[in-house]
Each structure stands twice: as C-alpha cells, then as structure tokens.
C-alpha cells in the first residue's frame, strides 16, 4: 500500500511518520528544500528513515490517485517530472497569510506577518528597524518576538480585536498554549494595542509612515495618528492552500477541507490534515497529521492523537471566535486603493464591475480583471469577494471559496516544461 503525503510542515511530517510506522510505503512530497513547513522554518526537521522524501518537489496537478510532481529549483525550467500513483493521499499543504487591503498596502516595506516571520526565522533578516505589526490573531505575538530577536524595534502591535475573547473559553485552551501566549503578552505588553489597526501606509517608493487608527468594535475608525516607520507587517489570520483539494473534488465547509475524525475527506482515499482543514497552530496540525497518516495506511487507532485533535480544535474554535474580520475595514479603502495587486484593480474598479450587474464569479472577474494575475487571486480573493458581496448588498452571490481556488495547475509551470512533458504525463 502506498501513501503519498503532500506537504512537509508539522501535519505532513507527522502523517508521513505515522503512515510509515503503520507499514505503508510512504512518499513525502514537499516544495521546500528542507522539511518543517512554516512553523519549523530555520530548524530543518527529519522524517522517519523509511519515508521517501522528495525535496524541492511540488505536486502541480492531480488526476484521481495520480499525482504529477515537478522536482528542482524554484521556477527553474530544468525541473524534472514524475508521476506518483497512490493508494491513499494525505493533503497537508498548509495555509498562507490573509491580509485585508488598505491604502498603501502595495508599497514596498509592507509585508505579510508570515513574510516577516519567514525572513526572520529563515534568513535572519529584519524587515525594518522601526516596525509596526498589525492585523488580528495570536500569530502577531510570535512575529513581534521574532522581529525583536533579529534587531527590529517593534513600535506597536495592533490587534483590531481585543485579543482577549478566548479568555471567555478557558476550557478550550491547553495549559501549554495559554502559558505560551501569556509569556508573549508579558514580554510584549508595552507595544500591544487592542482595537487598533494600520489603516494606511504612506510613502513614495517605500513606506515611511503609517496611519494607526483606534477602532470601533466593527472596525470603523474612531481616531487616528501617524507614526514614522521603515516597515510594517500585516496579518489577518490565514487562508488554506486548497487548489489540490478542489481539483481532487474534496468537499469544503466554511472554506476549509471537510474531514471526518480520521482525517478522511469526501473523496475516497484522500485524507487531509493541518491548516488546510482549519487554522489551529502547529501542535494541532501535527496531531491531525498523525491521525490522518495512520488512517490512510489503515493502521490502528491513535487514541492519544485523537484526543489532542479534539482539544486542539476546541482551542482553535475559541481563537477564531475571538479574532473575527469585521466589515468596517471596507471604510478604510479609498477609490484608488488596490485590491488586486497583480492586475492593479482598485476599489473603484470593483464597484464599477458590480454596478455593471455582472452575474457571478466569471463575469465579475473578467469585467474587473480581479484575481486574473500571476497569483490567481490567492492574495486578494477573499477581500474581493467580501467587497463585491457588500457592494451588491446581497442581491447576488459572487463566488464561493472553491471558485477562487479552482486552479487545475496548482503551481505555474514554464511553457518549456509543459512542452517537454511526455504524453502520458499530460
């Protein structure tokens, strides 16, 4: 029995280890040169020696249980191809930052919170000397901590919510998680400001200041001040990387891959674990990976991991409830604020497309060109849906998350690579 695990973060690592331990012939495919995913960046991980690890390898298309892989340096035309036939697949492709747009968010010097974290942990680079961290969610705290560790001065940590909502769900929290969060809170409290946000970034060719606003509970602006910075990083939670799940036909619920307690998706033979199934941090991702890897290999029930998954999901739900995205951010936008960074589609352009009474996703996208650029809507998609839906005042539904993630080619290939694919590979 062959299990292929896609993604080498905490979830995929645990899934591959568990599948191999249960006796399956296990392959772990990961795009990064070293294992560990987002959480372990800078601290390469090892996997069970029985697992065949394909590094620098990306699954770019799926057809049933056939997975198409390219291996080699990022975006290189000399990558080589391989087709893997799987008896079971564990999808553990993780997530990327969600960012709500604001005027100036496309200026150099404005980064996602994940980018600030990845550059600090992976490259030892501080995005700036005077930095403001903004967004919502507990992830802002480790990011601020990492920035300080590489020498940045963190002027403010702005959470648009109070950040304390999860205290209302004490039963949901694991003691270790609570201790970790409280530890950050103590070390970072002088910079931490609840109910505030960076609502604009200023500068010509690079950010030199931000407007930090005090917010109402619905995220509309109460008052604002200007702060000189040389960098800012922003994160409003995470968006799962769903393209393979969508191509495989997995049912989504609330924008995540729907899974049973075993990690089984709606498609026979396809399992999912980690942040593609919900945002809950590395420990939960690893527990889910162990459960899904075991189930994929038809191993025996890992009851300790299952219990961890249950408590981890309760904590994740409490955190999510404490860090909602409130519609008041739409009021931060000006006519010429970019929503789609690739095709340079502004808020005004989106309004014009909605006014044309476009009938749904495809026409709306084609009229405005939102999400049609290189990133294919990965960066702006959620924001564009929210804006279009609000502007249309519920008269129409514009897209579903699956529409946004429908990218049969999950990662761009070069024309030369496509041309050189052997026929049976297509």
């Amino acid at each position, binding site marked *: 029995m062959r299990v292929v695990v896609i993604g080498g973060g905490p979830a995929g690592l645990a899934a591959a280890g568990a599948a191999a331990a249960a006796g399956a012939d296990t392959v772990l495919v990961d795009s990064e040169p070293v294992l560990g995913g987002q959480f372990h960046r800078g601290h390469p991980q090892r996997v069970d020696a029985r697992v065949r690890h394909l590094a620098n390898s990306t699954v770019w298309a799926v057809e049933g249980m056939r997975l198409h892989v390219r291996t080699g340096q990022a975006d*290189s035309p000399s990558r080589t191809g391989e087709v893997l036939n799987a008896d079971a697949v564990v999808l553990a492709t993780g997530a990327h930052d969600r960012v709500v747009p604001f005027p100036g968010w496309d200026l*150099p010097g404005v*980064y996602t919170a994940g980018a600030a974290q990845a550059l600090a942990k992976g490259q030892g*680079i501080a995005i700036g000397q005077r930095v403001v961290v903004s967004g919502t969610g507990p992830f802002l705290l480790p990011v601020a901590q990492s920035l300080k560790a590489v020498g940045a001065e963190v002027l403010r940590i702005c959470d648009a919510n109070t950040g304390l909502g999860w205290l209302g769900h004490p039963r949901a929290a694991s003691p270790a998680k609570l201790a970790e969060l409280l530890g950050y809170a103590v070390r970072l409290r002088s910079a931490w400001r609840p109910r505030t946000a960076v609502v604009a970034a200023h500068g010509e060719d690079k950010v030199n200041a931000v407007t930090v606003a005090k917010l109402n509970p619905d995220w509309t602006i109460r008052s604002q001040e200007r702060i000189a910075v040389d960098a800012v990083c922003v994160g409003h939670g995470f968006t799962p990387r769903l393209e393979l799940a969508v191509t495989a036909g997995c049912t989504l619920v609330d924008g995540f891959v729907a899974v049973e307690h075993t990690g089984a998706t709606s498609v026979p033979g396809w399992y999912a674990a980690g942040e593609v199934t919900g945002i809950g941090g590395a420990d939960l991702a690893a527990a889910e990976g162990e459960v899904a890897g075991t189930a994929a290999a038809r191993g025996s029930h890992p009851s300790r991991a299952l219990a961890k998954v249950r408590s981890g999901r309760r904590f994740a739900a409490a955190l999510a409830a404490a860090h909602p995205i409130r519609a008041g951010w739409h009021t931060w936008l000006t006519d010429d604020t970019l929503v789609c*960074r690739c095709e340079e589609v502004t808020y005004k352009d989106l309004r014009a497309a909605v006014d044309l009474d476009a009938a749904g996703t495809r026409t709306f996208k084609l009229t405005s060109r939102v999400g049609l650029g*290189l990133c294919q809507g*990965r960066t702006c998609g959620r924001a564009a849906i929210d804006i279009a839906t609000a502007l249309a005042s519920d008269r129409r539904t514009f897209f579903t998350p699956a529409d946004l993630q429908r990218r049969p080619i999950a990662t761009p290939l070069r024309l030369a690579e496509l041309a050189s694919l052997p026929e049976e590979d297509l």
Partner: protein
Amino acid sequence: MRVTIDGVPSQAAQGQTVAGALLAAGRTSWRTTRHAGKPRGVFCGIGVCFDCLVTVNGVADVRACQRVLVDGDDIRTEEP
C-alpha cells in the same frame, strides 16, 4: 558562495534566498508593475503572491523568495 546581483559580485551564504540577498543588500523593491509602474519587492515571503520576481541566470520571472542561491548565480532585477 559567490553570486552577482545586477553585475555586482557579492558573497552569499548557504540557504540564502535571492530575496534574502537582495534585502540584505538594502534593496526593498526590484520590479515595477505593468500598468502603473509601481515598485514591488517581497510581500508574502512564501511563494504565493508573485510580487518578488527576478531573472536568475537568464530565466525571467523567478520568485526571489523561493529560489535558494547557488554558487555562481547571476541575478538580474528589472530595477537595478
């Protein structure tokens, strides 16, 4: 490792990405957008946004945040 960035020789460390090297050299943007000509550098840092494109050894449109440097790499940006 030795690499060149826009024709200027420089040293690179094992595991350093093209974006890491450009940022370490004080560059925050190295490309402009097609329509408005706005500057772009790193945004997402993990290969999702395609803001950070550079030319590596003559191959255009390589994501700087994903491409790990190897000895002898010739990096060209649109905006030296």
